[in-house]
């Protein structure tokens, strides 16, 4: 350069013009198309972390294993669920963690599902063996908790690749594997499941989402960015499976009514299930969130028949007709007006989907301060709306973790790791990001899958259990709700059996809150079987109005707060007008 004065003059001119020196690397911040105005950031709540992590010394020492073999077998990428179950009816929620296992036929390992008995004071004991829950085979995915035989003890259904398992709670601290007798094995690749009384006969039926027809022989080589070896997605297999619907005969057995109910007429790669009366016709409908295919909304026609109307009703695809990767799903009345919306977690770049229910028709709603805010960079699985800070508004927690490699690596030890998401509800479907991400420090950086919300320490605030792939379980203890008021409900029918899909309307002088009681939702997980409301600083008794699944409405006036109430059908005051459908 010095030998050429002409060049020197030119470079000087360049420098005077404000250009950069030649040969210098491009600083990322000085791009030619940098934003001209500051990027408006989403509202953010910065305060103390909402949760603290439970120490490993608590005894809840579950560690999930996907059995990853380096061969990128597809099921390794999807495993991991958790169920909250008070199996011994001592009032403390116990924790059932679903393991993967190992798929390698040369080194097969059965899944090490684990049941932890809650001893109180944040101590847990592994009671798996004593409870008879050791699983001999299969590859674990998730679970659903429900009292299918109406004996008052919560039973456990475990979904797997291979035979699913139905464990009947024998009421003495042990379970019996009644899969074969009950006829609910499926023997496929099941993911999420829900106990739901779709025909209103008082017995909990069983809906099971099935994913992909898979075997090691069908595995393919798949690649991510730049052709790096990676996990395949469901499209590579082109082998979706219909869900399974089992009708509870009431004698401890089920009949497979999938085909008779019409559920084989449309299906996709099912990962999530949600249930509820979405069209207010008095019958419980079924929703299946599919991965990379259109979702199904199975509208209950009565007489055991269902018709999929997701496309027309607007909850099958995104707003412009594109299928997304549906993972976890919840039915939630986000606007608190008596209609169940659907919130589905999706893959990076898609954004989570809120299907807002307007008189039985859904709109794929996207707003800058909606529950999908900030979700585009993440891949969501477990999901729950719950009032963590007890301010009377639903907050949102999403367990994130990639299914594919990409350029942004957050953790050297786990290239699929992402931070979880916590949003604080501001009411009317508006949210703000809570900092730190996921509500805890240090943030959870893992490949999170299933997740369950429940009051583990009976203090009226909601805690969290998150399953991360190939990592120890994370238990988050709520510290944000302290000092505020709450109320919880356990619902029973006239015969004292567990009730599902009742609609609760809680009235105080400040607001009306709506909930649907259905713990089997999210991703491969089962939530607190009790229905929880935060009440803020208000400590006066509340009024509860219930629409039972048979359509009858009752009111339970003047219920004291800060306690759990057992609400039984027929014990309230008859009422009308609150549920106009």
């Amino acid at each position: 350069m010095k030998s050429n004065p002409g060049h020197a003059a030119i470079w000087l001119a360049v420098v005077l013009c404000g250009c950069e020196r030649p040969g210098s690397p491009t600083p990322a911040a000085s791009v030619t198309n940098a934003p001209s105005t500051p990027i408006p950031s989403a509202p953010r709540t910065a305060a103390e972390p909402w949760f603290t992590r439970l120490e490993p010394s608590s005894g809840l020492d579950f560690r999930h294993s996907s059995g990853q073999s380096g061969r990128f077998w597809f099921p390794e990428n999807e495993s991991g669920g958790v169920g909250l179950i008070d199996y011994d009816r001592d009032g403390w929620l116990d924790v059932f963690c679903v393991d993967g296992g190992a798929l390698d036929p040369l080194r097969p390992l059965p899944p090490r599902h684990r049941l932890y008995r809650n001893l109180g004071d944040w101590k847990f004991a592994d009671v798996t063996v004593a409870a008879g829950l050791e699983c001999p085979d299969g590859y674990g995915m998730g679970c659903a908790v429900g009292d299918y035989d109406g004996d008052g003890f919560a039973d456990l259904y475990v979904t797997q690749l291979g035979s699913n398992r139905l464990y009947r709670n024998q009421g003495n601290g042990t379970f019996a594997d009644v899969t074969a007798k009950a006829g609910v094995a499926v023997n496929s690749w099941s993911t999420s499941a829900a106990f739901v009384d779709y025909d209103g006969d008082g017995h909990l039926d069983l809906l099971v989402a099935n994913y992909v027809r898979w075997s090691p022989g069908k595995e393919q080589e798949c690649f991510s960015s730049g052709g790096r070896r990676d996990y395949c997605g469901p499209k590579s297999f082109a082998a979706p499976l219909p869900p399974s619907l089992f009708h509870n005969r009431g004698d401890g057995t089920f009949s497979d009514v999938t085909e008779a109910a019409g559920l084989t007429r449309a299906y996709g790669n099912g990962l999530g299930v949600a249930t509820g009366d979405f069209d207010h016709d008095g019958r419980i409908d079924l929703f299946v969130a599919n991965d990379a295919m259109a979702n199904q909304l199975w509208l209950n026609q009565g007489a055991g028949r269902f018709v999929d109307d997701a496309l027309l009703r607007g909850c099958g695809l995104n707003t412009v007709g594109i299928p997304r990767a549906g993972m976890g799903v919840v039915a939630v009345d986000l606007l608190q007006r008596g209609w169940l919306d659907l919130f589905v977690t999706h893959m990076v770049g898609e954004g989570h989907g809120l299907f807002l229910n307007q008189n039985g028709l859904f709109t794929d709603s996207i707003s800058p301060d909606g529950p999908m805010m900030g979700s585009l960079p993440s891949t969501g699985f477990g999901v729950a709306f719950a009032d963590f800070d007890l301010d009377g508004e639903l907050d949102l927690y999403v367990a994130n973790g990639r299914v594919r490699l990409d350029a942004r690596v957050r953790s050297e030890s786990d290239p699929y790791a992402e931070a979880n998401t916590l949003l604080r509800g501001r009411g009317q479907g508006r949210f703000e990001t809570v900092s730190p991400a996921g509500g805890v420090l240090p943030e959870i950086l893992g490949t999170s899958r299933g997740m369950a919300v429940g009051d583990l320490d009976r203090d009226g605030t909601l805690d969290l259990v998150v399953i991360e792939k190939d990592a120890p379980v994370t238990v988050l203890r709520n510290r944000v709700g302290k000092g505020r008021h709450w109320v919880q409900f356990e619902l029973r029918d006239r015969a004292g059996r567990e009730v599902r899909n009742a609609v609760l309307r809680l009235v105080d002088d400040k607001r009306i809150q709506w909930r649907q009681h259905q713990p089997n939702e999210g991703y491969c997980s089962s939530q607190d079987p009790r229905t929880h409301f935060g009440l803020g600083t208000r400590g006066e008794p509340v009024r509860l109005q219930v629409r039972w699944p048979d359509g009858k409405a009752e009111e339970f006036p003047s219920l004291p707060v800060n306690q759990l109430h057992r609400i039984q059908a027929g014990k309230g005051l008859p009422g009308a007008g609150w549920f106009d459908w």
Partner: protein
Amino acid sequence: MTSSTQSRRTAPAAAPRRWRVWGSGIAMLLLVGWGASFLTHRAPLLPVARPAQSATLDPQVRAYVEQLASLVEADPRHPAKRATLGLAYAANGLWAEARQTFLDAARLDPTQPLAPLYAAVAREELGDVAGAQPEFRLLTEQHPAFALGWSRLGDSALRTGDLPLAETAFDQLVRLAPTEWRGPAGLGEIRLRQGQPAEAIRWLEQARGLDPAARGGVYLLGQAYRAVGRTNEARLTVGVGGNESRQPMPDPWSEQAPIHMRRLPDQLAQAEELANQGRPDLGVALLQQAHQFHPNHPGLTVQLAVALNRAGQAAQAVPLLDRILQSDPESIAARIARSHALAQLGQGQAALTEAQAATALDPRLAQAHLAVANALLAREMDQEAVESLRTAAACDPRNGEIHLEIGTVLWRNLADLAGAHAHFLQAVELAPALPRATAQLGLLQLALGQRGAARESLARLQVMAPGSPEAAELTHALKQP
């Protein structure tokens, strides 16, 4: 400026005129040389972005991007070469490298709006949609007549729910590119989200008029019809418009992107698409090139054999498949492909045996039963073929094309019009966006004397595939007495 400087210079009085001319010429040459040198070297000398984990890349991708990166290194100030490398990175999912390379290309040629556009697209692809949006906004400020920038800005704003920004963007797009359907479709989507379905219908019908094949707009129209209670139209329209993939507004660079794809799944999809477009030979060439990098990849080898079958080169497919089956006798895909190859080569019995072997390996696999049906049809065993097709349909009950095939065999080979009618109806129900199904149903309805029903089928066809050969065939048939 040069000449005026010269004219003001006072020449020595004794200097001959020719020296003045020579002097002027030399000065001019020097200035031109400096100018050329300035133009050549004023662009900064930027390093070439290379993949961070090159060793883990697919060998074909690695070879391709390294080749292009070397070309850029040889000519580092060439913006077009830099942009081509960026496209190659993007087409192979290397978005971080693509973004840096597009940013570099934008610095090398600040007048080219596509480079910053693609840098922002790469940022979106890296998951930072919110961060990309201001870049699109800046691009539209710097290049206000650049319709693509407005289109991307509108899409981005819709994704983040910023409806006022989206409206501004799509208004501009409508103004700048009045024949582009995405402008009115975007405005229609905004109106729909704002709860104004009647207004949305006006925009979305306009979008459909501009491009009836643009399914994303058609799906939105269905949602708008539904919102105003036009349920029957809505049901048809969402069925036709749904399940589309995302299609941003095309540009000269995006049209080049497929030629840079070197990842196996993309190449397999390209080969399939080429075959569907009637150019299976190009698909074969593509996969043969990939096969050189992955000679032992069973999936690719089988797909190459399938492509050879489709290109009428079954004789070349058979040895490839034999090699696969030697190492993995239980490869169902290889057996199915071999069955099709043998049928094509006129070896009907061998084709049937091979297909039956595939069904034995997985009795629930529809493709295996389809291969049996294919072998049976080749031997003119039509009734037996229908049974196999029915088994295939039972294995894959959502597949409308199988019912279309059953209907076709029943009608054309077995003269069972009533049976064919039932299967065509099922095909249309299961595959509402498949023009062939609706067209065949319409033709059969004509054969059955159901002219009214055939006209309804044509109306449906004109919604889903106006101007298609299927629509033309049915239209022509309806004109016959």
